[in-house]
């Protein structure tokens, strides 16, 4: 018997609303010519990166993308640390390369936990302008390797203790030039966790954008870890009263995107500081609605070869 919390119920409603709207007739692409040949729809999002996660957007083959992600500290100390700007921050440097038009690989390194990562994104299905295919679907995988000292992993240390995995199916739809939405169920696994936590977590993410000018958008998103007793290694009583579920908080993001021909910039408020999706899903303890807000900044740069 699955035990969904409030965020789980909201996630389920969002999925149903999204699926219903995909198949309704109101969303039209630029319908100006005979659909003699199926044309792929323009990307739902300007960049393949949004907040801490991926979108279904892939750059054309032989494109190199450099990524800088910066998360300041939380604002709860007020002006003492200039609302988190002077507080300990997390940063990731990454590079992605599109091998094919629908396949991207990437690597990165993150300050917290000295996390190294390898990423792969693959577009399975591409939305078309005639709406014959109403969504774009991507598969996204992030393999993290924790670079912390051996002691962190307790006794009987093995190298495999360092590995963690995030697997996600991303489903997006470009409704029109102004509005796009995506939903993404995910699965996180850590080879090594504290005894009070589960190795596995299910999650639900969503993101949306409202483009209010040719280069600027309001962007909003969330990564919500789900309390699924069926995959838990602990009893329900334990989960309800201990850190495993008590400190399970979503990563909520809201902010502003600017995109140019070669760059995308995100400036936004967030609660997750982990940067890698699995770090936020498993360990985020910042409550967006209770002094757990921080400033996030992403910069991407593209080179076409």
């Amino acid at each position: 018997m699955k035990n969904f919390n409030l965020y789980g119920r909201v996630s389920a409603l969002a999925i149903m609303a999204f699926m219903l709207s995909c198949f309704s007739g109101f969303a039209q692409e630029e319908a100006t010519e005979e659909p003699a040949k199926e044309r792929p729809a323009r990307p739902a999002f300007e960049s393949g990166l949004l907040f801490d996660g991926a979108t279904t957007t892939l750059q054309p083959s032989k494109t190199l993308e450099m990524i800088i992600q910066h998360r300041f500290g939380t604002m709860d100390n007020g002006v003492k640390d200039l609302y988190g700007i002077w507080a300990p921050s997390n940063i990731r440097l990454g590079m992605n390369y599109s091998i094919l038009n629908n396949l991207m690989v990437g690597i990165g390194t993150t300050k917290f936990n000295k996390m190294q990562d390898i990423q792969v994104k693959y577009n399975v299905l591409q939305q078309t302008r005639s709406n014959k295919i109403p969504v774009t679907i991507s598969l996204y995988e992030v393999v993290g390797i924790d670079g912390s000292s051996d002691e962190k992993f307790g006794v009987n240390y093995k190298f495999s203790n360092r590995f963690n995995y995030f697997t996600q199916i991303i489903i997006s739809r470009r409704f029109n030039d102004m509005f796009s939405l995506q939903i993404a169920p995910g699965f996180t696994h850590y080879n090594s966790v504290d005894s009070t936590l589960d190795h596995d977590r299910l999650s639900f993410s969503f993101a949306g954008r409202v483009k209010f000018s040719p280069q600027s958008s309001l962007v909003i998103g969330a990564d919500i870890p789900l309390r699924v007793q069926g995959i838990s290694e602990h009893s329900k009583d334990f989960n309800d009263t201990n850190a495993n579920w008590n400190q399970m908080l979503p990563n909520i993001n809201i902010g502003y995107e600017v995109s140019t021909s070669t760059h995308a910039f995100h400036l936004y408020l967030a609660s997750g500081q982990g940067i890698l999706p699995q770090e936020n899903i498993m360990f985020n303890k910042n409550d967006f609605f209770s002094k757990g807000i921080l400033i996030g900044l992403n910069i991407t740069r593209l080179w076409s070869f």
Partner: protein
Amino acid sequence: MKKTFNLAAIICTVVIFMAANVSYAQKAGGPWTIPAKYKSMKSTIKAGDPSINSTGKELYNKHCKSCHGAKGLGDGPKAANLKTSTGDFSSKKFQDQADGDIYYQSFVGRDEMPNFEKKILDESDRWAVVYFMRTMKK
């Protein structure tokens, strides 16, 4: 001795700063050699298509405006960094060109003018940009 050294250091710094900020006169680009395939190319959208002022304008603003300017006058913020003048899309000389010529120059490019074939993949989107540039006519 120390005063002389400090003075020399200040003068060198000023000279280097000024040299770095000299703007060299831009040269107009030479005539384009347009391949036959592009000379005879025909648009996949009709004049007056609604995508011209939506998709065409959006893609122009995203990919072209930073060098060519919002009205195609060659006054975008990045234009001053280029050795070649970015032209004037409102001019008769530019507008008198065939559609295919403008298409080639815009998406295949040369030298400092990048290739945009991978940035704007859809054929009709590219023509929307070309026709949007035609709306910049004086």
